[in-house]
Protein backbone atom coordinates (compact mmCIF):
# COMPACT_ATOMS: atom_id res chain seq x y z
CA UNK A 1 0.00 0.00 0.00
CA UNK A 2 2.95 2.29 0.55
CA UNK A 3 3.38 2.26 -3.23
CA UNK A 4 0.00 3.94 -3.58
CA UNK A 5 0.65 6.41 -0.77
CA UNK A 6 3.64 8.03 -2.50
CA UNK A 7 1.92 9.23 -5.72
CA UNK A 8 -1.09 10.35 -3.69
CA UNK A 9 1.19 12.31 -1.38
CA UNK A 10 2.95 13.77 -4.41
CA UNK A 11 -0.47 14.83 -5.72
CA UNK A 12 -1.19 16.52 -2.40
CA UNK A 13 2.16 18.35 -2.51
CA UNK A 14 1.37 19.48 -6.04
CA UNK A 15 -1.97 20.80 -4.88
CA UNK A 16 -0.36 22.75 -2.03
CA UNK A 17 2.25 24.18 -4.41
CA UNK A 18 -0.44 25.13 -6.93
CA UNK A 19 -2.46 26.77 -4.15
CA UNK A 20 0.52 28.83 -2.98
CA UNK A 21 1.39 29.88 -6.55
CA UNK A 22 -2.20 30.80 -7.37
CA UNK A 23 -2.52 32.74 -4.14
CA UNK A 24 0.66 34.67 -4.89
CA UNK A 25 -0.24 35.41 -8.49
CA UNK A 26 -3.96 34.81 -9.04
CA UNK A 27 -4.00 36.59 -12.41
CA UNK A 28 -2.48 33.56 -14.20
CA UNK A 29 -5.14 31.21 -12.87
CA UNK A 30 -7.86 33.81 -13.54
CA UNK A 31 -6.74 34.07 -17.17
CA UNK A 32 -6.43 30.29 -17.60
CA UNK A 33 -9.75 29.46 -15.96
CA UNK A 34 -11.56 32.44 -17.45
CA UNK A 35 -12.58 33.78 -14.04
CA UNK A 36 -12.06 36.91 -11.99
CA UNK A 37 -9.27 37.45 -9.48
CA UNK A 38 -11.55 36.80 -6.50
CA UNK A 39 -12.60 33.41 -7.89
CA UNK A 40 -8.97 32.56 -8.65
CA UNK A 41 -8.04 33.36 -5.05
CA UNK A 42 -10.95 31.24 -3.82
CA UNK A 43 -9.78 28.31 -5.96
CA UNK A 44 -6.26 28.74 -4.54
CA UNK A 45 -7.61 28.63 -0.99
CA UNK A 46 -9.62 25.49 -1.81
CA UNK A 47 -6.47 23.88 -3.25
CA UNK A 48 -4.62 24.61 -0.02
CA UNK A 49 -7.53 23.47 2.15
CA UNK A 50 -7.63 20.15 0.30
CA UNK A 51 -3.91 19.63 -0.33
CA UNK A 52 -2.60 20.16 3.20
CA UNK A 53 -5.08 17.83 4.98
CA UNK A 54 -4.66 15.30 2.19
CA UNK A 55 -0.89 15.26 2.77
CA UNK A 56 -1.48 14.91 6.50
CA UNK A 57 -3.92 12.07 5.86
CA UNK A 58 -1.35 10.10 3.87
CA UNK A 59 1.56 10.79 6.22
CA UNK A 60 -0.22 10.33 9.57
CA UNK A 61 -3.16 8.12 8.61
CA UNK A 62 -5.86 10.10 10.44
CA UNK A 63 -9.17 8.44 9.68
CA UNK A 64 -10.96 11.80 10.08
CA UNK A 65 -9.12 13.19 7.05
CA UNK A 66 -10.49 10.73 4.53
CA UNK A 67 -12.71 13.49 3.16
CA UNK A 68 -9.54 15.34 2.03
CA UNK A 69 -8.57 12.42 -0.19
CA UNK A 70 -12.08 12.29 -1.63
CA UNK A 71 -11.93 16.03 -2.28
CA UNK A 72 -8.50 15.62 -3.89
CA UNK A 73 -9.94 12.99 -6.23
CA UNK A 74 -12.75 15.37 -7.15
CA UNK A 75 -10.51 18.38 -7.73
CA UNK A 76 -8.10 16.45 -9.97
CA UNK A 77 -11.01 14.90 -11.85
CA UNK A 78 -12.57 18.32 -12.35
CA UNK A 79 -9.23 19.72 -13.50
CA UNK A 80 -8.77 16.82 -15.96
CA UNK A 81 -12.28 17.39 -17.36
CA UNK A 82 -11.63 21.13 -17.64
CA UNK A 83 -8.35 20.58 -19.48
CA UNK A 84 -9.86 17.91 -21.73
CA UNK A 85 -12.71 20.23 -22.66
CA UNK A 86 -10.30 23.05 -23.51
CA UNK A 87 -8.03 20.69 -25.47
CA UNK A 88 -11.07 19.35 -27.34
CA UNK A 89 -11.94 22.93 -28.36
CA UNK A 90 -8.41 23.39 -29.74
CA UNK A 91 -7.48 25.79 -26.95
CA UNK A 92 -3.68 25.95 -26.68
CA UNK A 93 -3.45 28.69 -24.11
CA UNK A 94 -2.05 28.43 -20.57
CA UNK A 95 -3.40 25.39 -18.73
CA UNK A 96 -3.01 27.07 -15.36
CA UNK A 97 -1.09 24.03 -14.11
CA UNK A 98 1.68 26.17 -12.64
CA UNK A 99 3.61 29.36 -13.23
CA UNK A 100 5.71 27.75 -15.98
CA UNK A 101 3.12 28.87 -18.53
CA UNK A 102 2.33 25.47 -20.00
CA UNK A 103 -0.14 25.08 -22.82
CA UNK A 104 -3.14 22.78 -22.57
CA UNK A 105 -2.18 19.33 -23.82
CA UNK A 106 -2.17 15.58 -23.24
CA UNK A 107 0.64 15.76 -20.64
CA UNK A 108 -1.38 17.92 -18.26
CA UNK A 109 -4.57 15.91 -18.85
CA UNK A 110 -2.86 12.55 -18.32
CA UNK A 111 -1.22 13.79 -15.13
CA UNK A 112 -4.54 14.98 -13.70
CA UNK A 113 -6.29 11.71 -14.68
CA UNK A 114 -3.58 9.45 -13.20
CA UNK A 115 -3.43 11.43 -9.95
CA UNK A 116 -7.20 11.43 -9.72
CA UNK A 117 -7.41 7.65 -10.20
CA UNK A 118 -4.57 7.01 -7.72
CA UNK A 119 -6.26 9.22 -5.12
CA UNK A 120 -9.61 7.52 -5.73
CA UNK A 121 -8.09 4.09 -5.06
CA UNK A 122 -6.31 5.44 -1.98
CA UNK A 123 -9.60 6.90 -0.71
CA UNK A 124 -11.32 3.55 -1.17
CA UNK A 125 -8.54 1.69 0.66
CA UNK A 126 -7.93 4.31 3.33
CA UNK A 127 -6.33 4.13 5.89
CA UNK A 128 -4.42 1.22 4.33
CA UNK A 129 -2.91 3.66 1.80
CA UNK A 130 -1.33 5.78 4.53
CA UNK A 131 2.44 5.65 4.85
CA UNK A 132 3.97 3.30 7.46
CA UNK A 133 5.55 4.94 10.50
CA UNK A 134 9.21 5.19 11.44
CA UNK A 135 12.22 5.96 9.29
CA UNK A 136 10.63 4.47 6.20
CA UNK A 137 8.11 7.32 6.23
CA UNK A 138 10.93 9.85 5.84
CA UNK A 139 12.22 7.96 2.80
CA UNK A 140 8.76 7.76 1.30
CA UNK A 141 8.01 11.44 1.90
CA UNK A 142 11.33 12.27 0.21
CA UNK A 143 10.34 10.07 -2.70
CA UNK A 144 6.97 11.83 -2.89
CA UNK A 145 8.72 15.22 -2.98
CA UNK A 146 10.91 14.06 -5.89
CA UNK A 147 7.89 12.66 -7.70
CA UNK A 148 5.97 15.88 -7.07
CA UNK A 149 8.80 17.91 -8.58
CA UNK A 150 8.90 15.65 -11.65
CA UNK A 151 5.14 15.83 -12.01
CA UNK A 152 5.31 19.62 -11.63
CA UNK A 153 7.55 19.92 -14.68
CA UNK A 154 5.96 17.11 -16.72
CA UNK A 155 3.20 19.11 -18.50
CA UNK A 156 5.68 21.81 -19.58
CA UNK A 157 8.08 19.14 -20.86
CA UNK A 158 5.45 17.16 -22.75
CA UNK A 159 3.05 19.87 -23.93
CA UNK A 160 5.43 22.80 -24.23
CA UNK A 161 5.23 26.39 -23.17
CA UNK A 162 2.53 28.75 -24.27
CA UNK A 163 3.60 30.53 -27.46
Amino acid sequence: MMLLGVPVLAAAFLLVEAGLEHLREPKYLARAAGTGLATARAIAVVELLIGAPSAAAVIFGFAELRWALAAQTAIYLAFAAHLWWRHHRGDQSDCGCNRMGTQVGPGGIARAVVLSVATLVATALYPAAALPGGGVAVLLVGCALVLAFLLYTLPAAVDGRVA
Partner: protein
Amino acid sequence: MSVLAAMVTLAWGCLAVLTLAMAGMLRQLRELQTEVVALRADQGMKPWRATVGRRMPQLAGTGPAVLLVLDPGCGLCDEVHQPFTRLPVEYPGIRFEVLSPRALRRHWTEAANIRSRVDAALVAELDLPWAPALLHVADDGTVLATQPVAAAQQISQHVAGLMNTAMV
Protein backbone atom coordinates in the same frame (compact mmCIF):
# COMPACT_ATOMS: atom_id res chain seq x y z
CA MET B 1 5.93 -5.82 0.11
CA SER B 2 9.30 -5.03 1.64
CA VAL B 3 10.53 -1.45 1.91
CA LEU B 4 13.38 -2.16 -0.45
CA ALA B 5 11.06 -3.53 -3.13
CA ALA B 6 8.75 -0.55 -2.69
CA MET B 7 11.60 1.95 -3.00
CA VAL B 8 12.95 0.24 -6.11
CA THR B 9 9.49 0.26 -7.66
CA LEU B 10 9.03 3.93 -6.82
CA ALA B 11 12.45 4.75 -8.24
CA TRP B 12 11.44 3.06 -11.47
CA GLY B 13 8.24 5.09 -11.43
CA CYS B 14 10.26 8.31 -11.09
CA LEU B 15 12.52 7.19 -13.93
CA ALA B 16 9.47 6.55 -16.10
CA VAL B 17 8.18 10.07 -15.44
CA LEU B 18 11.64 11.47 -16.13
CA THR B 19 11.81 9.54 -19.40
CA LEU B 20 8.44 10.92 -20.44
CA ALA B 21 9.58 14.44 -19.64
CA MET B 22 12.82 13.99 -21.56
CA ALA B 23 11.01 12.55 -24.57
CA GLY B 24 8.69 15.55 -24.49
CA MET B 25 11.58 17.99 -24.32
CA LEU B 26 13.38 16.26 -27.20
CA ARG B 27 10.22 16.44 -29.30
CA GLN B 28 9.95 20.15 -28.55
CA LEU B 29 13.60 20.65 -29.45
CA ARG B 30 13.12 18.87 -32.78
CA GLU B 31 10.05 20.98 -33.55
CA LEU B 32 12.00 24.10 -32.69
CA GLN B 33 14.86 23.10 -34.99
CA THR B 34 12.43 22.38 -37.82
CA GLU B 35 10.80 25.76 -37.31
CA VAL B 36 14.15 27.56 -37.33
CA VAL B 37 15.16 25.84 -40.57
CA ALA B 38 11.80 26.67 -42.14
CA LEU B 39 12.10 30.27 -40.98
CA ARG B 40 15.56 30.58 -42.49
CA ALA B 41 14.34 29.04 -45.75
CA ASP B 42 11.40 31.45 -45.82
CA GLN B 43 13.68 34.43 -45.41
CA GLY B 44 16.22 33.08 -47.89
CA MET B 45 18.81 33.09 -45.14
CA LYS B 46 21.90 30.96 -45.32
CA PRO B 47 24.35 31.16 -42.43
CA TRP B 48 27.37 32.10 -44.55
CA ARG B 49 25.44 34.90 -46.26
CA ALA B 50 25.78 36.84 -43.03
CA THR B 51 29.53 37.06 -43.74
CA VAL B 52 29.19 38.38 -47.28
CA GLY B 53 29.12 42.16 -47.41
CA ARG B 54 30.72 42.53 -44.00
CA ARG B 55 33.81 44.65 -43.65
CA MET B 56 36.56 42.99 -41.70
CA PRO B 57 39.36 45.52 -41.14
CA GLN B 58 41.74 42.68 -40.28
CA LEU B 59 41.50 41.49 -43.91
CA ALA B 60 42.15 44.91 -45.49
CA GLY B 61 45.31 45.41 -47.54
CA THR B 62 46.71 46.62 -50.81
CA GLY B 63 44.40 45.33 -53.50
CA PRO B 64 41.77 42.60 -53.37
CA ALA B 65 42.56 39.27 -51.77
CA VAL B 66 41.68 35.62 -51.96
CA LEU B 67 41.65 34.05 -48.56
CA LEU B 68 41.86 30.33 -47.95
CA VAL B 69 40.45 29.41 -44.55
CA LEU B 70 41.95 26.13 -43.37
CA ASP B 71 41.86 23.96 -40.33
CA PRO B 72 44.91 21.87 -39.47
CA GLY B 73 42.60 19.07 -38.41
CA CYS B 74 40.96 18.62 -41.80
CA GLY B 75 42.48 16.29 -44.38
CA LEU B 76 41.19 18.12 -47.45
CA CYS B 77 42.73 21.37 -46.17
CA ASP B 78 46.18 19.82 -46.46
CA GLU B 79 45.47 18.70 -50.04
CA VAL B 80 44.16 22.11 -51.00
CA HIS B 81 47.09 24.11 -49.69
CA GLN B 82 49.67 22.96 -52.27
CA PRO B 83 47.64 23.87 -55.41
CA PHE B 84 46.60 27.11 -53.72
CA THR B 85 50.24 28.21 -53.45
CA ARG B 86 50.53 28.08 -57.27
CA LEU B 87 47.67 30.52 -57.86
CA PRO B 88 49.46 33.87 -57.20
CA VAL B 89 51.28 33.39 -60.50
CA GLU B 90 47.95 33.23 -62.35
CA TYR B 91 46.51 36.29 -60.59
CA PRO B 92 49.07 39.07 -60.35
CA GLY B 93 47.89 41.97 -58.21
CA ILE B 94 45.75 39.76 -56.02
CA ARG B 95 46.78 39.00 -52.45
CA PHE B 96 46.64 35.32 -51.55
CA GLU B 97 46.43 34.52 -47.88
CA VAL B 98 45.89 31.51 -45.67
CA LEU B 99 43.97 31.81 -42.43
CA SER B 100 43.70 29.18 -39.73
CA PRO B 101 42.11 29.16 -36.29
CA ARG B 102 44.93 27.03 -34.91
CA ALA B 103 48.68 26.64 -35.37
CA LEU B 104 49.46 26.01 -39.03
CA ARG B 105 51.14 22.88 -40.26
CA ARG B 106 54.82 23.53 -40.84
CA HIS B 107 54.79 23.17 -44.65
CA TRP B 108 51.85 25.61 -44.90
CA THR B 109 54.10 28.44 -43.78
CA GLU B 110 56.82 27.68 -46.32
CA ALA B 111 55.09 29.27 -49.33
CA ALA B 112 56.90 32.60 -49.74
CA ASN B 113 54.28 34.25 -51.94
CA ILE B 114 51.41 33.60 -49.54
CA ARG B 115 50.86 35.29 -46.24
CA SER B 116 49.80 32.84 -43.54
CA ARG B 117 48.19 33.82 -40.28
CA VAL B 118 46.61 32.21 -37.25
CA ASP B 119 43.62 34.07 -35.84
CA ALA B 120 40.96 32.06 -34.03
CA ALA B 121 38.89 35.14 -33.27
CA LEU B 122 38.77 36.18 -36.92
CA VAL B 123 37.79 32.68 -38.05
CA ALA B 124 35.04 32.62 -35.42
CA GLU B 125 33.85 36.02 -36.58
CA LEU B 126 33.70 34.84 -40.19
CA ASP B 127 31.48 31.96 -39.00
CA LEU B 128 31.96 29.87 -42.13
CA PRO B 129 30.21 26.49 -42.23
CA TRP B 130 32.99 24.84 -44.26
CA ALA B 131 36.69 24.06 -44.10
CA PRO B 132 38.44 24.64 -46.38
CA ALA B 133 36.67 27.76 -47.59
CA LEU B 134 37.60 30.50 -50.03
CA LEU B 135 36.83 34.17 -49.53
CA HIS B 136 37.06 36.99 -52.02
CA VAL B 137 37.90 40.15 -50.09
CA ALA B 138 38.04 43.77 -51.31
CA ASP B 139 41.02 45.98 -50.45
CA ASP B 140 39.07 47.62 -47.62
CA GLY B 141 38.39 44.21 -46.04
CA THR B 142 34.82 43.79 -47.27
CA VAL B 143 33.97 40.13 -47.93
CA LEU B 144 32.65 39.98 -51.50
CA ALA B 145 31.98 36.23 -51.81
CA THR B 146 32.54 32.94 -50.06
CA GLN B 147 32.72 29.41 -51.37
CA PRO B 148 33.55 25.96 -50.08
CA VAL B 149 36.35 23.96 -51.71
CA ALA B 150 34.98 20.63 -52.83
CA ALA B 151 38.16 19.16 -54.34
CA ALA B 152 41.82 20.14 -54.30
CA GLN B 153 42.14 19.65 -58.08
CA GLN B 154 39.38 22.18 -58.68
CA ILE B 155 40.87 24.99 -56.61
CA SER B 156 41.77 26.96 -59.73
CA GLN B 157 38.18 26.80 -61.03
CA HIS B 158 36.86 27.64 -57.59
CA VAL B 159 39.02 30.77 -57.41
CA ALA B 160 38.06 31.78 -60.96
CA GLY B 161 34.38 31.39 -60.06
CA LEU B 162 34.86 33.26 -56.82
CA MET B 163 36.54 36.22 -58.57
CA ASN B 164 33.64 36.48 -60.99
CA THR B 165 31.05 36.43 -58.22
CA ALA B 166 29.91 39.75 -56.92
CA MET B 167 28.33 39.89 -53.47
CA VAL B 168 26.59 36.54 -53.21
